[in-house]
């Protein structure tokens, strides 16, 4: 490894003010090999890794990236790394890997060239240059992305509130007939009493008719007996209505009145007094 002290024509020992250590400012400094230890740590923190750091060195010395002067760059890089290690800084592994790679490239470049080699070996710098270039493209892309107008910074979403009378549209749950049947099964299993309320088709239609007659009675105080029958329903319908009226009367939900013998019969909602 090179000695950092006297081998570097591109650097001048010059103390750096600690004030510049944040952000980009550090990149603008001209000659800066000597860096106070704290600053050095922060300096490396400002780079996004060894590629970024190499790009910085290249730009700083105005090297042409495609004519990468590997020896000089390597030297620079090594000096920083060595210094960091001397100061016992914990270096990210990537920086050491890059150091090894640079050292390898350098040694390959320094090997005597085989004049007779049939095919030119690939330039050992090529891969590194490719990586540097690729990285630089995306480093720039990140900067460009950052300058795109964006929400929360360059514009804000325009919003209005909903009017006070707004009511959400509620989608009510679906129920299937099977759900009702299952619910009933559960009740049957549970409630012994319910066994007496055995349900049959005839009984159900009677009970529905009871509801219908009660509904009619909500609209009319008195309902003529005949109004409870729909002739179109035929004999079965008449029977159902008749059973419903009897059941309603039995349950004391209605009263039946007949003013005169053979006179019209009327249905009336039962009141407490009559019941």
């Amino acid at each position, binding site marked *: 490894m090179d000695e950092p002290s006297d081998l570097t024509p591109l650097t001048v020992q010059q103390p750096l003010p600690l004030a510049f250590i944040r952000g980009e400012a550090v990149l603008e400094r001209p000659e800066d090999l000597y860096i106070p230890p704290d600053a050095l740590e922060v300096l490396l923190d400002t780079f996004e890794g060894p590629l970024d750091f190499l790009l910085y060195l290249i730009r700083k010395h105005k090297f042409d990236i495609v004519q990468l002067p590997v020896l000089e760059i390597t030297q620079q890089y090594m000096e920083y790394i060595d210094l960091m290690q001397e100061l016992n800084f914990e270096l990210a592994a990537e920086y050491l890997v890059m150091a090894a790679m640079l050292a390898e490239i350098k040694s390959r470049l320094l090997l005597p060239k085989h004049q007779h080699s049939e095919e030119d070996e690939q330039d050992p710098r090529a891969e590194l240059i490719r990586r540097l270039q690729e990285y630089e493209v995306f480093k720039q892309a990140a900067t460009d992305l950052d300058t795109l107008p964006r929400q929360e910074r360059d514009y*804000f*979403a*325009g*919003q*209005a*509130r*909903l*009017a*006070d*009378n*707004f009511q*959400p*549209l*509620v*989608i*009510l*749950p679906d*129920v299937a*007939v099977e759900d*009702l*049947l*299952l*619910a*009933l*099964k*559960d*009740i*049957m*299993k*549970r*409630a*012994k*009493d*319910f*066994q*007496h*309320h*055995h*349900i*049959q*088709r005839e009984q*159900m*239609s009677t*009970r*529905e008719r*009871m*509801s219908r007659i*009660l*509904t009619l*009675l*909500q609209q009319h105080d008195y309902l003529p007996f005949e109004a409870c029958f729909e002739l179109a329903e035929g004999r079965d319908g008449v029977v159902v209505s008749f059973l419903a009226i009897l059941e309603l009367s039995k*349950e*004391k*939900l209605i009263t039946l009145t007949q003013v005169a013998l053979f006179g019209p019969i009327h249905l009336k*909602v*039962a*009141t*407490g007094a*009559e*019941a």
Partner: protein
Amino acid sequence: MKRVISELQLLQLVEAALFTAEQPLSLEQLQNSVLEDFALSKKKVQRILAQIEQDYAGRGVQLQLTASGYHFQSRPELSEFLAKLWPERSPRYSRAVLETLALIAYRQPITRGEIEDIRGVSVSSQIMRTLQDRGWVKVVGHKEVPGRPGLYATTAQFLDYFGLQRLEQLPELMAFQQLGITDAGELPSGRQESNA
């Protein structure tokens, strides 16, 4: 420091502030935030707000002044349609709701007390309200016993929802007979149940 801005830009600025702020903005808040640099009189800001209110009179959103300040609000008559942007799915009905509905369907007209007797647990007002709000059950009369409890029955809407023309089209208790419930009122035995 007072900066110069055109009338149009002032209007745009106030309007944009009212649209982008998360809370309604009072006149003072406007003066102290977005309009800070322009040293506008209260009267001037009022004129701007009046202009904006007028500009939006016929539009989909309108300027409103509430206790906490100015904000834009959708026209009330659009609410019905806007609701479609936020459909809310309500949770499935509980066992208790379904059992109550089943009893009303099969045993109507029936009082809440009778439902409670059969289910063996009390039936909350909430359950009855759920079923009435849905339009599936209604009170068709009152039973003439102390307290005159309401008699519940199913509605035409209930039949429509389940695709029935008459209540008799509900599945009959065949299903229960298969469970082994006989007229004698025997409890189903375990074996029969497992065969069902």
